């Protein structure tokens, strides 16, 4: 067993884990956070996406020990202080960016990382930025709309939009 110390959704934790424990299993089973899902389990589908020091990563392809000393954020960690949905989550609901919801926590975290890197993405940049996340309900159009709406809310409409308006 190896001791890890990390921050999960702003809370400092310390746990004894087997080195082979995957980060997704640590989050779901040790910490009890069930938003991130195990989908393909092969680094393809993105349902397990969480943030590591702000960057999107696939937690099925990381060991919990690799996250020691780092900060991990899951979809539970991006809700507002009063418990209401965060900006990206709200945009997904308002734009019908989900059907069954299985991919949604991963989509929200991938979108959160994308918007941190590129606050004013074009539609094409959103589509490419989400290439690591699969939606099997084929709901991509509304997901892209949701991310663009979230970008406007977080950073204001882009200058190009203002010119057109």
């Amino acid at each position, binding site marked *: 067993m190896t001791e890890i110390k990390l921050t999960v959704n702003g809370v400092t934790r310390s746990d004894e884990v087997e080195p082979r424990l995957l980060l997704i299993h640590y989050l779901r089973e040790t910490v009890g956070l069930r938003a991130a899902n195990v989908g393909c389990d*092969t680094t393809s589908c993105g349902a397990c996406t969480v943030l590591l020091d702000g960057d999107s990563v696939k937690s099925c392809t*990381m060991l919990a020990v690799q996250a020691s000393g780092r900060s991990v954020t899951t979809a539970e960690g991006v809700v507002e202080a009063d418990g209401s949905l965060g900006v990206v989550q709200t945009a997904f609901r308002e734009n019908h960016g989900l059907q069954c919801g299985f991919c949604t926590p991963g989509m929200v975290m991938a979108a959160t990382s994308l918007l941190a890197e590129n606050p004013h993405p074009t539609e094409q940049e959103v589509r490419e930025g989400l290439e690591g996340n699969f939606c099997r309900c084929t709901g991509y159009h509304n997901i892209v709309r949701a991310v663009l709406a979230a970008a406007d809310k977080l950073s204001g409409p882009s200058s190009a939009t203002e010119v057109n308006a």
Partner: protein
Amino acid sequence: MIPASFDYEVADSAAHALALLAEHGEDAKLLAGGHSLLPMMKVRLAQPAVLIDIARITELGGIKIEGDEVVIGATTRHAELAGSELLRAEAPILAYAAAQVGDPQIRHRGTIGGSLAHADPSADLPMTLLALGGSVEITGPSGVRVVGADDFFVGPFESALGPDELLTAVRVPRGGAVPWGYQKFVRRANDWAIVGAAAYGGRVALASMGGTPLRATATEEALKSGASIEEAAKLAAEGTSPGYDFHADVEYREHLARVLTRRALEGKAG
């Protein structure tokens, strides 16, 4: 899918990593981003007894200029390569290729050293290093040696890296003004190349056309003799030995090599 049990060691310097490698021998594997190794461990294609984590070694990171070369630390992540202003100015084909690896999540974790050491003949960075005519810096018990890309890839998933050695840095020529092109044919987003072609000056490298990334030597020779791009690209599949799978048979891969080489030589990126 859960990897088999292993012991976990954190190396805090390159020297420490080498000492741990010497101690554990061939039972040990180095772990950086883990995006080639962990998927293999999850399906038990790899079952190392010891994992040595080198991702926390600060001396293995960073991108800098040294004379007429850009030197990139082995644990530099794909996202850092893609976003590096220095690399975009000095070796734009490498920054571009790094942005084509997998997807954003994979690029946040995977490292250039890990990708090259994994030596996947269909991967982006091995093909690009070969096109650039770059080299890797390898540190072992007897010191540092530099191996050129032409000699580094020796077989499918096999490199010149010994079990007691550490890939410490990657060297590529400074060449911001050298014409380049990059082509990768995939059926799905975030997939490996069915065929890839990278052109840098008069050098052309191919992915998925054999057991290692390969130079399109007949094309390169033809260009040197003054052939047009269109004529030279027709020779791109000569000397290659592509495999076949449900994506493409041999003939189709040869066709793709010719078409993608032409587009790469025309300076197209896509």
